[in-house]
């Protein structure tokens, strides 16, 4: 009986603290002003720097040791399908994320050294592949045999915030 009461008390306490958190958390977060248009523009420029860096890395043999680059098999980041991750990856025998697959590609077909997940290089590769698929609906687990976004000209990613591809 005591145990049950204790559980009830604990549950009530948890509930209360959740409610308290729910009340106070937004106030805490909204303590920061949203970025000004100038700041937002700077942030976008930083993102595009990462996308550009990813584009360069994608087409450079520097990630591997046998001359191959990501772009050999994935022109315009096609068949990367960022919108379908996480999903069960047969090669890895588990539910995996896109960066894990990137590292598999770097280690196996490119015979290179894997990247740490928070490295600038990995973030840049993710930025490029994901930005190429801007606007595609999220669909984790979706079976995409090929996929890819039609590209007409240039590097293929919009250079402005919502520029045309």
């Amino acid at each position: 009986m005591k145990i049950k009461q204790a559980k009830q008390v604990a549950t009530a306490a948890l509930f209360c603290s959740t409610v308290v958190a729910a009340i106070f958390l937004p106030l805490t977060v909204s303590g920061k002003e949203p970025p000004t248009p100038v700041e937002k523009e700077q942030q976008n420029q930083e993102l595009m720097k990462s996308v550009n860096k990813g584009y360069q890395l994608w087409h450079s043999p520097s990630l591997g040791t046998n001359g191959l680059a990501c772009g050999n098999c994935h022109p315009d980041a096609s068949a990367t399908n960022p919108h379908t991750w996480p999903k069960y990856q047969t090669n890895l025998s588990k539910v995996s994320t896109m960066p894990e697959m990137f590292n598999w590609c770097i280690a196996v077909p490119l015979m290179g050294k894997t990247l740490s997940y928070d490295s600038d290089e990995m973030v840049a590769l993710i930025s490029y592949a994901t930005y190429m698929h801007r606007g595609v609906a999220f669909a984790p687990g979706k079976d995409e045999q090929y996929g890819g976004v039609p590209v007409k000209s240039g590097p293929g990613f919009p250079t402005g915030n919502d520029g045309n591809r």
Partner: protein
Amino acid sequence: MNKREFLGLSFKSGAATMAAGMFSPMAGSMFGLGGVAEAATKQISPFTFGVITDAHLYNIADHKFDHQLAHSVAQINAMSSAPDFVIFAGDLGQQGNEAELVKGKSILDKLKMPYKIIPGEHDYYLDMGKAWRGLFGNDHWSVDHKGVHIIGMNSILVNDFWTLKSLTPRERMSYMEMLECSQCGLWGVQEQQLSWLQNDVKNINPNTPVIIVTHSPLWDYYPRWNFQTEDAPQIRNILRKFDKVMSIHGHVHQVVYNQIGNIVSAGLMSTSWPWPYPPVELPYPDIRMNRANPADFEDGMGSHALGLTSNFDGVMMYQAFSDGALPPNVKHGVKL
């Protein structure tokens, strides 16, 4: 049935038996597509030839792509009914170095039969084809074989994008190395070869069967990746007088099929790596390969053999290295 057994069966008793097998009801039903160009009336002597393409060799010793090209050569050499000759449809090297082309030639020279070759963009843009021509001769040619007129052309010529940018030859090549090069422009055979082609076929009877080999497809597939030839409409126009033309191309690293007027067109798998299908609708979506398994280095790649009957009906055999790449309708041959 594994690949070896299948090929052994297919080619055991020569082209005539193969053709009978290939044009079984099964093969017929999968081509219930209509519109196949009327067979030429002229009888030819049936024969088979091999096709290999897109080896993309690097100047790195003992590279996996060397072995994959060698595998392809061995596959064709092992066919129980030896093809008369082999065609290599471009991109022997990757970065245009002479060393890559020399290595490639030494592997192709192991073929038991003669071969003809055309350049791809990877063979060409370091020295504008100098090393390639030194090893292989002219980049466009025609031969007559058992009643069939066979044409090879260089379809990877682009207009000068490098002089204004002051690019070095190495930089020019690295631009062209990218499939999605945004500066390089569209490829074609250009004016000189168009005149040559016009002249080459001028006195050839329209009922002569014609096979044309180019690196890129002679139709507008996906220009972004140069899955096209800019002056293909002019080429098709010059060849319009023939009853039937078969167009064979590399560059796409995949099984793809089309028909335009009197021309049937087949794209080939590479020996190096497979490419995803571009984000466009295929004209014949049933004739495609499965997505290759990246853990299997040879999946989605292989060599090919084209068998011709006396009526100039042809079947493109995709001889995949790994069995999983091809759906059954492709595995059993694609009628051209």
